[in-house]
């Protein structure tokens, strides 16, 4: 077993793990503020990559195209909240699950129709000349992914703790009713959380697209892995999700490298069951009986 090989797997693991953490953060924001698990979270990631691909294809300068695509996907998240979540506010958990699954299906099918079934790729942000690191090859885009994740996590931490909106979100997450009593509108918070989660997903989809492509059907698996990251983090705070995402990414990449890449996705599912069953009591403590 060569060292460079191990380093290579670790770099890959941290890169994809960062994306899982970003997706997981989206789950965490929405879940902590509204109690909803958004089964359409992975679709925001897919849309990020796809919309950016099209906007760059239109000839827009890359930075503007990227910012515009984040804005557009955020809009999708906000609209989804307004038309599908807000009217069903007092619905049961099952109803809300089916609604967000419906949203996932809708977004995915429209994407399949609009962009076709093939995978699309974005150009790397800064060239594709691999750097050498301890004998392993690291594409510069990997560094972009890690850097973006770090910036996002810190930014989100600051948003939650240093801004009024963030504190309102936090209050709503801690106790919706008490927050409402001090004038924090639950509907607005729900709207903001969906917008933030969609933006987060879009950023993840954009930074990873130059490495692993984007295709209309990537949302389910990516959503599931993001959920695993969020569940490992206990659906609270920033750092747990980050650790969860990185842990999952590393496990997946090492297993694919040393065991078999055919079962790469199965690793995430094993993690899913493990985390759900081990943490079931703690996770369920926050969830009232339905």
């Amino acid at each position: 077993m060569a060292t460079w090989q191990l380093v290579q797997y670790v770099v890959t693991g941290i890169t994809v793990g960062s994306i899982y953490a970003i997706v997981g953060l989206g789950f965490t924001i929405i879940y902590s503020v509204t109690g909803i698990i958004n089964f359409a979270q992975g679709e925001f990631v897919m849309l990020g990559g796809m919309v950016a691909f099209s906007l760059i294809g239109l000839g827009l300068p890359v930075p503007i195209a990227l910012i515009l695509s984040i804005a557009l996907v955020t809009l999708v998240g906000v609209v989804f909240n307004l038309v599908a979540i807000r009217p069903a506010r007092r619905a049961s958990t099952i109803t809300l699950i089916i609604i967000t699954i419906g949203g996932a299906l809708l977004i995915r099918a429209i994407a399949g129709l609009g962009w076709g079934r093939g995978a699309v790729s974005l150009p790397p942000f800064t060239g594709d000349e691999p750097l050498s690191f301890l004998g392993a090859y690291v594409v510069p885009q990997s560094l972009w992914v890690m850097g973006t994740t770090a910036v996002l996590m810190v930014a989100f931490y600051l948003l939650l703790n240093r801004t009024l909106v963030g504190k309102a979100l936090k209050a709503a997450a801690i106790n919706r009713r008490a927050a409402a009593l001090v004038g924090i509108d639950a509907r607005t918070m729900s709207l903001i959380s969906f917008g933030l989660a969609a933006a987060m997903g879009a950023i993840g989809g954009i930074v990873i697209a130059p490495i692993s492509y984007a295709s209309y059907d990537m949302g389910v698996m990516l959503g599931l892995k993001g959920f695993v990251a969020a569940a490992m983090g206990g659906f609270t705070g920033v750092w747990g999700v980050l650790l969860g995402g990185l842990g999952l990414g590393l496990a997946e990449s090492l297993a694919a490298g040393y065991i078999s890449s055919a079962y790469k996705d199965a690793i995430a599912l094993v993690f899913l069951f493990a985390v759900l069953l081990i943490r079931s009591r703690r996770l369920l403590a926050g969830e009232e009986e339905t």
Partner: protein
Amino acid sequence: MKGLLRRRVKTAVLAALVILLAIVPLLGNMYYTSVLIVIGIHAMVAVGLCLLIGYTGQVSLGHAAFYGLGAYIAAVLSTTYHINPWLAMVLAVAATAVFAFAIGFPIFRLRGNYLAMATLGLGIIIWILFRELDGVTGGQVGFPGIPAPSIGGFAFTSDFRYYYLVWGFCLAVMVASQNIVNSRIGRAMRAVRDSESASQSLGISSVLVKAKILALSAACAALAGSLYAYYVGFIDPGPFGFLFSVRLVVMAVVGGLASIWGAIFGAATVRLMTEFLHPFGDIDVILFGLILIVVMILSPQGVTRGLADLWRRVSRRLARQAR
């Protein structure tokens, strides 16, 4: 008096349905016959899902896996091991039910969102196994040469014969489900759905009830899956993935989540939409997404229940006006 009348109307509607179903293949249109065979197969899976979601209040986003297990077990036993197709069918149903019952215990420690995510993951794991265990399942290439079942010298090879086989099974599953819903365990299911802690205080073991219903629901799906495998003679992992699991939820939602006979309506609606719209791309799937959202907002009990409520409200208002 009113109850009696309602029951008579119900019997008449069911009798009309059965007669209509019996006549269709006699019309000689191969296309209708084949579409209705698929509807009958899907309706069996959908009714199982209704028992689980609508009556017991537990969501499953991985039900295609049980359908696939039924199909693959029956196919492998009857083709690779030359076991009689009927016996293979029985074994496939039994094995799938036992598997579902066994996983029911850990999985039903979870509730709501987490249960949904766990079933979604379970469905994907089993789908990956269908794809990767290519020594047994044929993997992505597929599994050909599945024999058709026969009784004595009477083989169910033509669509005409197979149609009656499928609908015979389908109606039997419907009647059995109806009876289960009206039995002791049916009441236990609804008690668990409406309040788990209240049902437990009455001495109902909620996990046991849920695991039993999951097993039953998986058995329905496996029966349908084995019938599907014998019908098409060739299976690959394609129809047993996440998308079919969601399609099944759409069928259950359209048919009315807590409605046994509605499952046929749901399966028929979804299949016909796909038949008519799929040639134009994934328009059917877009509509399925919209249906899920709109129906859940307007009538969380499903389409048929929503329409029934609406009818009741309208007729009550009309009666009041008449007075």
